[in-house]
Structures are given as structure tokens and as C-alpha cells.
């Protein structure tokens, strides 16, 4: 009957839908099951709509500095609803793009919530009254915001938001507390601050953007503070209480008790994997800390069952989900993956932007690598000065012994568009010699990448 497939993918986020496309390219008869929107969190409630909001905020904030560019504007203002509508339109456009791609690749889209039952050679996928059988089932059910109801860190849609609510509010709050200074928390802090909200960010770790290189997170914090964002670092939320007009958070910052009041609180304290109600337990799938345990090819240990993307563990990034999915299906198809180390870059699309790949300086030292570190600030980069975007720096980390590029970190204007240069260099196993020998176009902000590589070996030219 029609419900027999080679591959069934559950979840249509960047992990799932990309896997389905690759599966179809490889000649598998493929179906994808989705309980809500095609494109998953990333396209509908994550990467893409946030970038639309951030752009609006960025453009609006630029207006503050028009005079610096010799420009003026009579009256500035914004239509908050218009900003949100644009973000939704962008998401809708990407979503229909996925619909088109599924059709183009003859992938059957099955609407509904999937559940697994024992089966052979792979578990059977049950969606409503349909039973889909396949040789390979790939779980890409993603993740959702972590909440802590016990202390009030739980969305109510009014005063307490997760990213979901934060993406489609009725109005911009006058004051806002963001709990968690990871990429998601900082992006909302950056956006709402751009529109004029009073924003305070609480971070439990000793510094903001804790996964980034310390120097980078320090530099970023300075710029955020210049923009008026306040921080409580390190700080713990003891209790959140709601009132009609807002929230109040009892926190302990730097060992001292404090109460923060705001109209709204955004909870951005990490995510949990969507592992419930799938029937994983009955199948004997191993789940640790809400994530499915897999081998390096995504195999769960249950014959024919694989897991990729957010549900299979960190880093929780869209491109990591896609990459894992492609690897998984190619492995299933028996293609030999190339024996390369592909480091996964991470980006935060705030003002200023943060982008990094590989090891931080501290990690390199922990590994006993004796790193050679180079830095170059945008302050002396011609293009950055011309563009009026002088905040930030580029930092490169080389293995002192072999010269291999082992880490690169950037903070500044549009650095998220540049990090792939370093990712490519690392994948190609470049050493300082190749990067130094590469000609970077002038004038570009990317010249700072070149200079940082030169600086690591005492050869910096413009400092």
C-alpha cells in the first residue's frame, strides 16, 4: 500500500527537511511527518523571524546616528505591529519555500503527530490512523524552551515569555528582564533595546555569552552596555512573581539579594529535546538529559532508527542539524564520508554581532596546546571606519606547535557573514601560512581577519 517508504523523517525543521531532500536525491522514497509548520523552529519560530525583527531594530537604531553620516530625519518612529507582521511574512515565505522543495523532491508530507511502534526492519511510524512503514526512520523532532515553573520561569503569554511569545507580542514592553545571556536571550535583548525598551539581562555564569571566548564576551558586553543594556552577572533567579502590571524577580547578583521589576520577562535558559510521546521508551531508545543518545552517524541502537538535530544534543544550531542529517542519510546510503574535521561555527545576530568557530583561547590552553593568539580591532580597519562600525575585533588562535588554525572569534558589524572564511580554512586544515598568504580585498572588514592571523605571528601591518 501507499504507506510504505524507504525513509520516513519525523520533524521538518532544518534537520528534518534537509535530510528528506538528500534522501530523495539519493533515490529513497521519502516521507516527512510534521505536526505544525514545515521548516520547524528555525524557519517559523527561530533563526529566520528573529533575524527579521533584528533588522527592523537595527535600522531603527541607526536613525539615532544619522547625524554621524551627515544625514537627518524629521521624525522617527515605528509601527510595532508592522515590524512583527514583516517578521511573520518572512517566516511564511520561507515556510512556503519548504513546501515547494518537498514537492519538487517528491517527498510526501504527512501532517500530524508521529509516534513510533515496534516494527521491522525499522519501527513503524504511526500518524493518526496511518501507519507508515520504512526501512529507515529518522527522528528530527527538535527542541523547545526550557522552563522552571517552580520559581515562576514559565510562560503565560502575558508577562512571562519564551521566544515564541517574544516573537509575536502585541507591543514592545517598556521594561524587560531577559533571563539567560545565550544567543537567543541576547538577540531579544538587542532587538527590544533597539526599540527603546529598558533591558536587563541576567546571567548565571560569570560572563555573558558564556560559550564565547572571554575577550569576545567582554568586548560585546561593553558595546551592549554602551547601547544601554544592563547586566546582572553572575546572578541567580530565586523567584519570579507576577502582578497586573508586570513581573518582579528576586535575584541574587554577585552574592547580594536584589529585586528587579519589569513589564515583561523573557525566559531564555536553554532548551529541552522533544522526546516525549514518541514511544521511545517502549523501543528502548536511550535518552539522556532530554536528548536522544546516538553514535556519530545518528544511529540510536534500535535497528533502523536514527536521530539528528536539536533532539540529538548540542550544539543546538540549525546548520548543525542539517549537517548531521545529511551525514546520517549518506551513511545509510552507504556513501563514504570524507575524513575531515568540520568545525561548527556559531553566530549571534545582535548589535554587535558575534561569530566564532573552533576553540576559545581558554580551551586551547586547557588542552595544553600553547596557542599563538592574534587580534585586530575594527577601530583601525578602513572599511569599518568608513562605515561607522568600529566596535569589535577579530581574534585568531593557532596551535603554537603545528600552526593549525584552531579557533577564530569575532565581534562586530556583520561578522556572522565572515566566519565561514575561518571555518573553510579549518576544514581545509590550513595553517597560518595559507591564511597569511591569502589576499583579502581592500577595503573590507575581512582585512581584520588577515591582520589577526598576521598578528598571531608578530607580523601585523596596521597596528
Amino acid at each position, binding site marked *: 500500500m501507499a504507506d510504505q517508504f524507504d525513509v520516513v523523517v519525523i520533524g521538518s525543521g532544518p534537520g528534518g527537511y534537509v535530510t528528506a531532500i538528500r534522501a530523495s536525491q539519493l*533515490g529513497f522514497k521519502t516521507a516527512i511527518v510534521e505536526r505544525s509548520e514545515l521548516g520547524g523552529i528555525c524557519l517559523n519560530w527561530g533563526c529566520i523571524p528573529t533575524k527579521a525583527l533584528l533588522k527592523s531594530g537595527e535600522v531603527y537604531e541607526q536613525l539615532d546616528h544619522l547625524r554621524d553620516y551627515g544625514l537627518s530625519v524629521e521624525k522617527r518612529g515605528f509601527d510595532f505591529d508592522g515590524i512583527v507582521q514583516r517578521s511573520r511574512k518572512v517566516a511564511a515565505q520561507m515556510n512556503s519555500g519548504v513546501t515547494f522543495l518537498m514537492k519538487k523532491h517528491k517527498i510526501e508530507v504527512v501532517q500530524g503527530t508521529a509516534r513510533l511502534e515496534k516494527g521491522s526492519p525499522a519501527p513503524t511510524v504511526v500518524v493518526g490512523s496511518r501507519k507508515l512503514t520504512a526501512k529507515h526512520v529518522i527522528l528530527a523532532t527538535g527542541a523547545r524552551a526550557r522552563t522552571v515553573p517552580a520559581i515562576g520561569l514559565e510562560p503565560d503569554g502575558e508577562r512571562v515569555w519564551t521566544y515564541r511569545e517574544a516573537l509575536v507580542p502585541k507591543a514592545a514592553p517598556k521594561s524587560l528582564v531577559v533571563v539567560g545571556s545565550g544567543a537567543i536571550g541576547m538577540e531579544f535583548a538587542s532587538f527590544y533595546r533597539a526599540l527603546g525598551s529598558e533591558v536587563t539581562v541576567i546571567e548565571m555564569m560569570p560572563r555573558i555569552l558564556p560559550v564565547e571566548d572571554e575577550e569576545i564576551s567582554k568586548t560585546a558586553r561593553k558595546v551592549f552596555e554602551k547601547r544601554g543594556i544592563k547586566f546582572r552577572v553572575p546572578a541567580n533567579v530565586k523567584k519570579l512573581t507576577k502582578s497586573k502590571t508586570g513581573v518582579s524577580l528576586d535575584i541574587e547578583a554577585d552574592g547580594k539579594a536584589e529585586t528587579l521589576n519589569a513589564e515583561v520577562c523573557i525566559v531564555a535558559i536553554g532548551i529541552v529535546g522533544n522526546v516525549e510521546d514518541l514511544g521511545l521508551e517502549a523501543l528502548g531508545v536511550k535518552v539522556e538529559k532530554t536528548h536522544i543518545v546516538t553514535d556519530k552517524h545518528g544511529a540510536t541502537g534500535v535497528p533502523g532508527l536514527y536521530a539528528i538535530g536539536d533532539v540529538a544534543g548540542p550544539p543546538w544550531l540549525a546548520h548543525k542539524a542539517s549537517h548531521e542529517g545529511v551525514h546520517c542519510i549518506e551513511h545509510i546510503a552507504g556513501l563514504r564520508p570524507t575524513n575531515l*574535521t568540520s568545525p561548527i561555527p*556559531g553566530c549571534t545576530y545582535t548589535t554587535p554581532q558575534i561569530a566564532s568557530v573552533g576553540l576559545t583561547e581558554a580551551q586551547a590552553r586547557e588542552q595544553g596546546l600553547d596557542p599563538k593568539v592574534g587580534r585586530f580591532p575594527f577601530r583601525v580597519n578602513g572599511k569599518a571606519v568608513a562605515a561607522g562600525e568600529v566596535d569589535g575585533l577579530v581574534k585568531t588562535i593557532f596551535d603554537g606547535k603545528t600552526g593549525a588554525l584552531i579557533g577564530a572569534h569575532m565581534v562586530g558589524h556583520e561578522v556572522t557573514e565572515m566566519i565561514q572564511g575561518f571555518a573553510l580554512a579549518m576544514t581545509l586544515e590550513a595553517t597560518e601560512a595559507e591564511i597569511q598568504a591569502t589576499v583579502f580585498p581592500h577595503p573590507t572588514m575581512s582585512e581584520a581577519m588577515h591582520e589577526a592571523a598576521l598578528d598571531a605571528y608578530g607580523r601585523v601591518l596596521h597596528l
Partner: protein
Amino acid sequence: MTDILMPALSPTMEEGTLAKWHVKTGDTVRSGDVIAEIETDKATMEVEAVDEGVVSEILIAEGSEGVKVNTPIARLQGEGEAAAAPAPAAKAEAAPKAEAAPPAETDSARASREQATDPVSKPAPVAAAPAPAKAQQTGERIFASPLARRLAEQKGLDLSAVKGSGPHGRIVKADIDAAQPGQAKAPAAQPSAAPQQASAAAAPRQVQSLEQQGIPAGSYDLIPLDGMRKTVARRMTESFRDVPHFPLTIDLEIDGLLAARTRINALLEKEGVKVSVNDMVMKAAAVALKRVPEANASYTPEGIAMHHHADISMAVAVPGGLITPIIRAAETKGLAQIASEAKDLAERARNKKLKPEEFQGGTFSVSNLGMFGIKTFASIINEPQGCIMSVGAGEKRPVVRGDKIEIATVMSVTLTCDHRVVDGATGPLPAGVQGADRRTADDDRLRPAMTSIYDFTAETIDGQPAPLADYRDKVVLIVNTASKCGFTKQYAGLEELYRKYRDRGLVVLGFPCNQFGQQEPGDAEEIKSFCSLTYDVDFPMMRKVDVNGPSAHPLYAYLKAQKKGVLGTEGIKWNFTKFLVDRSGKVTGRFAPTVEPKALEGAIEALL
């Protein structure tokens, strides 16, 4: 303290099984002592100690599989050396460990990103294949990532000795990490094997899984690839893909060969040797290769290697694969010797007891599927050899002779040629084999088994059979004659000798031959009348024969082998070479054309 390293038994060997230890800790070994047995995909081989000393530590346990070449397997303590604590590093080397452990994760949301590496990328345990030491000298480009180059330099690794596992076979960091430190120098690879290895790094082929190709899992059993299967797969793929090959097939009538075989085997019976058709084919091939040396050659980037000897690799099926032990310099060996060597090699091949030098480095292969009834087939070239000959079954087939169909035993042989070495012009090699097969029947080396000229039969000039046994108890003078030669007047001297000693038991036999300056062009009738009219020849004249070359009369092959000419060569130089045979059929003398018949009187009288 000396480390004994896992030896490379062959240039392609990457790892092996330490099958057995012959020594234990504390044993004293002398150089040359057998200390262990190593088993590879191809063979079991004994490892001999190179140095003297006391075994201070056994690093790899008996029965360990997949021991990489150059891994230390034991420690030897030299005489007088203080017993030192075993270095702990040794074990770590033996079992290469993964890279440094990743740093601890923070529990923050994207904490692990920093050190996250591609899940694909776990360095696969890529064995560094001992490979072409030549690659660098010949300036062949080695593809390696910048980091891999630098790491190799720092480790003192020869990149040409490392097999790349990156995109398009590029050498990446993981390959260097997996390479053994002892890899600095490629083990003495046979030069002839080197060129073909350069291509080992060919792009990995993208293969669809069986499932993807419609063969469901569970519908078959999977036999894991063992070393031999992998080696066969790799070598055959590389050869078939990279060597421009073409087949040439020819039918050989082998009735003569079969008759010779029966005869030969009867003679060899008491020695317990039995010559097979394949032995004769190998001998024939070796002889043919000497005549067509272009086919006994190997292509190398530096030039065509023309081998001095026909080292014939014979394909032997063994459980789980195929191996090709070698009959060295087969052209110099007699059939009896080839037969006994072949039997011994095949037996030891099946028991995995061949030494590497016994199956590496042949110059030409013979593969025979005749016993399975295969009519013709074209084998895949066994690099770096230039040709391989596939031998089909000998069977009765109709053949056209003149305008008649007759039955003959026919065997089809196919020569697969490397076109870089063998051109169309060399193609007639199988024809050469055909010529040689006739000659094989009269293999010189078998002569010891043929004890006198009485074993041969000639044909009189009138076409009557003339068994030489008819001249038993006579002294026989055998001369190759010609009617238009400077020496032709020796007919007179010969006739004189004949008449003088005929009654005392001398016989002169004339064998006209046209091989020298074409001075005997005429037919039997012409020769006969010339002899009687001009020189009044009365002694028996025989039919025209060849005395040299593959179609030489067997009698002459025998005579020449019994009495070589001056300078030790067998070939007859000109007309009127004389062989003197005593009353028991033994050849006692060989006299050059320049020796006048009269000068032989003394020698003849001595025999009479």
C-alpha cells in the same frame, strides 16, 4: 634496548596477525632465530631475529589481529645492557589512541559548540600503507592538507608512505595521526611494485548500499571482508581501471603436446614426477617470452622494464582468494623441475606457507581454468606484469585442414596485454607460444631421460620411416648437408669414409638442411639426384630437416644438447657439422664444418 617491529611481508601489507610467538620473555635469541609467526592475507611467515639479545618484553600478545606494520612487537635487550624498566609508551603505540579528550562541557546552552567537531570526522584508523618510496623522487604530486604536510614534517614522516583518506584521497591530519612513527621510511618495497601503488589513493567511489539498490537487508548474509579479499578487490580494481588492456585469443592444437606429455611422463615415472599440461604451457610460455621479450616487460613511469628472466606467476586458487606463486627463470628449467616446483608451490600456497618472495615479483602470469571446462577467458592483468595468459580447456574440436574437416585436440589461450607495454606488433606472442609448445615436447632438459639416439626416428629421403634404432651397434656419423655450399665437396670425403669403414660398422647419415644461407633449396628428388650424380653418394640420405630453432628435428635437439659447440653454444653454425656416435648410441664427438671428413678417421677408428 632494541624494539622488534612488526615486519612488512610485502609492499602492500598494512597489518597482520601475530599468529605465534616462538620465544618468551627471558629467552636468549641469536640473529636468524625464528621468534614469531606472522600471518597476513596472503601467507604465514616466520619472523627471524636480526639482533642478538634477551627478549625483555613481549608487547603484542599471540593471536593479536590487525597489528599495524612497524608497531613494536617485542623488546630485545642487548648483551651487557642493563635491564631497564619497560617503557610505558610502547603499549600506547601498539594500540593507537584517539586524540586528546575534549574539554569538559559547560552546562550552558551552546556550551559544547566550541569543541564540537563534525560527527563525521572521528579520525578513522587509517593505516598508513607502506607505499611507493619512489613517489617523491619521481616528482609525483602528493595531495595533502597544509596541516598534514607540516605534521608529517614534524614527525619525520614520509608523506609518500601515507595513504590519504580525505577528499579525493588527500592526506589529512587524521591520516598522519594514525600513521605509525616508524613509518619514516617505506619498507623496502619491490621497485616493480611501486608505480602501481601511486594510484592507490584514487578517489573513493561513491557506492550505493544494497538496500538502496533494491536488495533488502536480511535477504542475504554478509561475509566480512578479510585481508585477502580486500587486497584482491583493490588490486583487481586498480588494474582493470588503470591498465589499458586488450585480449588476444588463439587456438592451439595440442595433440602433439599431449602425446609428448604421455611420452615424457612415461619416462619420468620412475622419478615420481608427473608433468601436467599446465606445466608444459608454463614452459612454453617461458620459451616464447625469451623469443618475444617485449611481452616479458613491465610498464613503469621511468620506462619499460625488460625482464631478464621469464618468472612465471601461476594462479593458484586458495580458500578465500587467489595467489600467484612464481616459477623463477622458467625458461632455464626443464619440465620435470617445473612440474615438481609447481606442485610444491601450489601445495604450500593452499596451506598459506609461501614466503613473500615466492609470490611477489613475477614477470608473466598463467591462469588455467581448463580443468573447470572453461573454453576461453581473459584474466585481469597482474600488475606490474605486462601480460597474463588465460588457458582454457583442451577439447576435441573440428579443425579445417586443407579443405577437410578433421578432429583435433584444441586449446584456446588468451593473452591479456598491457597496451602500454605490448603493442599490436607484439601481439603474435600466442603464435610464439604455439611454436614453443611443439618444442616443449622435445624439451632439452628432458634429454637425460632420453639416453641414446636410438630413441629417435628420422625419415629417409624417400619418405620412409628410419628409426635410428636400426643403427644399433654401429658407429654413426651424422652430418647436416647442403648442395650449394662451400663445404659441399665434403660429400666426397664422407662417401670415402663410408666406403672405407662401412664393413667395419660405420654408417654415415646425411640430413639435408636449408637453414644456413639457404644453400639447400631443392626438394627431396633434387637433393637425391644431386648427391648420387655429383658425388655418387651411397650412404643413407634423410629428409630435409631443421637443425636449429623451435622446429628442429628432435634428434638434432638431442645431439646438440649432448655435445655443445665451441663456446658452449648448442646451435649448429653451418652446413656439414658432424656428430659422431658410438656403438651404444652415445654421442662422442662434434666436429665443425671446417673439419674435413678425412680428419675424422682417427676418431672413427677408435670407436670401431
